[in-house]
């Protein structure tokens, strides 16, 4: 999902750089105030860890293999603010030392994988864990969060490519999201397995997702919410809304750009239409809904492995009851 240079146009480069700058800046500001000094070396080592962990290959059918991305994993272990900074550091090193992802596209890559992938995934994790409660529920929530984070990042990435005029929205969204529904499933399984091993040997390493609600915490929450919402408004909403010309028209009226928006609906792509479905985008949305159910089920099965019944009986905390 690393976008190289040359794929994004100027307005997308500026918009993504501004959004990720705000999100990373807000995270750094909060960490400067609240992070214990002890934890600073841990962040550097966590960044090195994510890099090293991405070199462990997991076999997939057909002779190919995939690797962890790690956004939700770091957010669950270190909290979302540290997760964003760690992922940004990994992406900066990959960009500067390996040319893996472009320099001008760095803002976009940090926004997709570092901000949306981490905050989005952590948000889903926290919401689902809040509803389900129990310790097994936590692992179901981790699976759904890791899956959702991959899909969200892919969606925003497709929107950026479409907004730049590199690829039409229908094709980019359909291809990116369908591929990443499978990749996300792998991410979910790896994240849950890794966290279950960590929980078994070092339970103290888990941060409590229901953090104390300080003022900094609210500021951060609002900043993440606003940047994510703006990202979706810029990159996804113009194409996904039922009135696709609304924002485009408004933006054109303001004179921000000329005719550089892609003709989102002109390419027919007959091969993509699933029989009985109106459009590939709608079909992808349906597949996404089915995928969510599948991920909940997979997450439940994984949670049974991750949290054996014996450890449930031993749990003394309030949420330690059985999963329904």
């Amino acid at each position: 999902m690393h976008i190289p240079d040359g794929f994004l146009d100027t307005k997308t480069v500026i918009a993504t750089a501004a959004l990720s700058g705000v999100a990373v800046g807000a995270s750094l500001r909060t960490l400067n105030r609240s992070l214990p000094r002890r934890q600073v070396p841990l962040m550097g080592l966590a960044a090195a860890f994510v890099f090293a962990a991405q070199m462990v290959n997991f076999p997939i059918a057909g002779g190919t293999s995939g690797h962890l991305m790690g956004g939700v994993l770091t957010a669950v272990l270190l909290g979302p603010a540290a997760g964003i900074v760690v992922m940004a550091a990994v992406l900066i090193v990959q960009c500067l030392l390996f040319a893996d992802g472009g320099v001008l596209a760095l803002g976009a890559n940090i926004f997709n994988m570092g901000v949306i992938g981490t905050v989005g995934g952590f948000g889903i994790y926290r919401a689902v864990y809040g509803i389900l409660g129990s310790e097994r529920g936590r692992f179901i929530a981790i699976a759904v969060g890791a899956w959702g984070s991959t899909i969200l990042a892919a969606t925003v990435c497709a929107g950026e490519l479409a907004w730049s005029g590199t690829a039409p929205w229908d094709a980019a969204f359909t291809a990116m999201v369908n591929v990443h529904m499978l990749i996300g499933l792998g991410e979910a399984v790896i994240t849950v397995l890794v966290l279950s091993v960590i929980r078994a040997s070092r339970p103290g390493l888990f941060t409590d997702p229901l953090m104390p609600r300080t003022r900094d915490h609210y500021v951060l929450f609002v900043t993440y919410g606003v940047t994510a919402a703006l990202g979706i408004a810029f990159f996804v909403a113009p194409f996904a809304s039922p009135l696709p010309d609304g924002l485009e028209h408004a933006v054109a009226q303001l004179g921000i750009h000329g005719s550089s928006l892609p003709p989102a609906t002109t390419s027919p792509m007959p091969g993509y239409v699933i029989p009985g479905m109106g459009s590939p985008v709608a079909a992808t949305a349906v597949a996404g809904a089915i995928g969510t159910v599948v991920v909940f089920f997979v997450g439940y099965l994984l949670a049974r492995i991750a949290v054996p019944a014996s450890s449930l009986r031993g749990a003394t905390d309030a949420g330690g009851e059985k999963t329904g």
Partner: protein
Amino acid sequence: MRHNYIDRYARLDSPVHRIRPDVKLAAALGLVLATVAVPFSLTAYFVSVTLFLILIVALSRVPVSFVVRRLLLLQPFVAGVVVLAFFRPDGWTVAARVVLKSNICLLTMLLLANTTPFSALLGVLTRFRAPGLLVTVLSLMYRYVFLLVDQGERMMRARRSRTFVRGRLSWMTGAGIVAHLFIRSTERAERVYAAMTARGWRV
């Protein structure tokens, strides 16, 4: 153990290596920016930039085979996005433009990374007032990444020598390696913190 794992050729000695890192960083960013912004029809620009980069490769003494291999290694990332461009009505033009532009940018960044030590780039970032915490995280990451990669490789070697299964890891084993890599990273972070504090480190 491979100490020069990341920026293998960054510490060679050549006219290109001796240029000040801030000048090199600015030049590379300017070149990437120009390449993305210049219209595709301006053939003279693309020809001259390509020739210029080839000249830099020759001057820098970074092995040509290494540059070509790295460039080929990065092509799947380009190809993955280019495929999507073919769904546009003007697919061929967009694809050709994107492939040419992104490859020039890739070559530029590869040359920057392999003629400038990462610590020098971090020095430039500090001078231009990049957030201190971010620079600290980056420099710690750069310092420890080869140790952790080495540790991961040792764990995989240990797995291979104990389980007589040909080929690849199972998911459970892979997850175990990743999990213990994290646990060892936290333990190392504790020791690093103690060592840094003992030497008078302040945030």
